[in-house]
């Protein structure tokens, strides 16, 4: 994970010219798929992801139904061509874990009690990957759920922070992720400062963690505004 010999910060700037607290460019398109009940295309720098929502629909197998609420399912899947070295198709351990964490990131905002015995399926496909795909996926999924008309208390926004060359920075790109010292993907309900997903690997001190959390909170506010704007634009067209 940690490799030596690459300078990630020069003259106070990152290799792609960003400041420490700067997000990569974000592009959001709502309702990009015809068959899905809701969908969203999301770009974060060189990450390109697309999310689709189906449901609520009858859940099969029936024994897996919940009599009191809908069951949320989330599938994170990488296209084989999305990374430098071809990824073998199908779920691996990484994607199983990401799917679980992402599902839990969204569950707090979805009012599942409205649709007992049903399932809501969220499918996220990573078309191009450049570090931060799980956060991009959660952002896309959150918008796609809203686009599908699923009753939600709020939107979920997500971003990663990390540590490179000893500095806590926002939204690592692939080079920074490969050569950096720590990576911490976070999802939150931005307007309530409520964290719905948090993972960390690498190594950081408690102070660095606090600093990273603050960076992520600010960034999630920005992402939330972009998500909201994208949804409003989509529906004011109609």
């Amino acid at each position, binding site marked *: 994970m940690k490799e030596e010999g690459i300078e990630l910060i020069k003259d106070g700037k990152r290799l792609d010219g960003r400041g420490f607290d700067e997000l990569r460019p974000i592009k959001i398109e709502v309702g990009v798929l015809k068959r899905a009940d809701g969908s969203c295309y999301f770009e974060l720098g060189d990450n390109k992801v697309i999310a689709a929502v189906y449901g609520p629909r009858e859940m099969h197998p029936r024994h897996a139904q919940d009599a009191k609420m809908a069951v949320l399912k989330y599938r994170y899947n990488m296209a084989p061509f999305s990374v430098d070295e071809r990824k073998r198709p199908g779920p691996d351990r990484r994607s199983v874990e990401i799917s679980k964490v992402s599902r839990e990131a969204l569950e707090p905002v979805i009012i599942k009690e409205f649709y007992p015995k049903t399932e809501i399926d969220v499918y996220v496909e990573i078309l191009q990957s450049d570090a931060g795909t799980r956060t991009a996926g959660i952002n896309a999924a959150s918008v796609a759920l809203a686009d599908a008309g699923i009753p939600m208390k709020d939107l979920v926004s997500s971003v990663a922070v990390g540590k490179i060359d000893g500095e806590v920075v926002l939204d690592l790109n692939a080079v920074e992720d490969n050569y950096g010292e720590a990576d911490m993907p976070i999802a939150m309900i931005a307007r309530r400062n*409520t*964290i719905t997903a948090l993972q960390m690997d690498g*190594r950081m001190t408690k102070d660095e963690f606090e600093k990273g959390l603050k960076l992520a909170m600010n960034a999630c506010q920005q992402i939330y505004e972009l998500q909201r704007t994208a949804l409003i634009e989509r529906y004011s067209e109609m």
Partner: protein
Amino acid sequence: MGLEIMDDVRRDYIYNLVRRGKREDGRGFQDYREIKVEKGIIKKAEGSARVKIGNTEVLVGVKLEPGEPFPDSPDKGVIITNAELVPLASPEFEPGPPNEDSVQLARVVDRGIRGSEAIDLSKLCIEEGEKVWIVFIDIHVLDNDGNLVDAAALGAIASLLNLRMPAERYGLSGEGEEMIPLQDKPVAVTMVDIGGEILVDPNYNEEKAAVSGLTVISNTDGTISGMQKYGREGLKEEKVSEMVEMGIEKADELRQRFL
């Protein structure tokens, strides 16, 4: 259906206890159950440990085998962590391929060990680009009464503490039965939020009653080397910070007592 009702009853019971400042087994909110760590109990494994936290019991075995390095790190050994939730350990566990819970358990434990750089992977190189030691950390859950993560993580690091290289068995002379020194001792501390209170080391019922939780893995110098949030509800930012602080503190206690 019957089970679901039992779950609801139990959830209410635990919740109401916590509201009155109590826990089912009489512990304080920040107390662990009784912990037992026995090292080196499997002769066939290069490192092993059995950890009991209350009724939760986890056996961790570490095997070393020569194998190929990853192309992007030709001079470094490899760690592979796996967890099996065997049906013997709980009525809820079923035989079959790993599910998301066992994958998560393995990956969280793995993350802590990797992040802390407890094992110096460059010491595990046999022949650059050709042959390195692969460290298989296998977590075998024997009894699930909650908080598998802390038990498994403690078991993993305890196993690594008495790890020997089986060089002779693989005809790799010169190495002998050399010990692999550890550079750090990461310890996982899991906490849940029930009714706004933070409970350390949730037992099975508390895990069921909780809507969110956090594992914090920290090192000897107090740095954090892994985290994972669980559950279907969010955690307020202040709560997360509080848990991180508590996690680091508790990890230090466990490290001094058991490693």
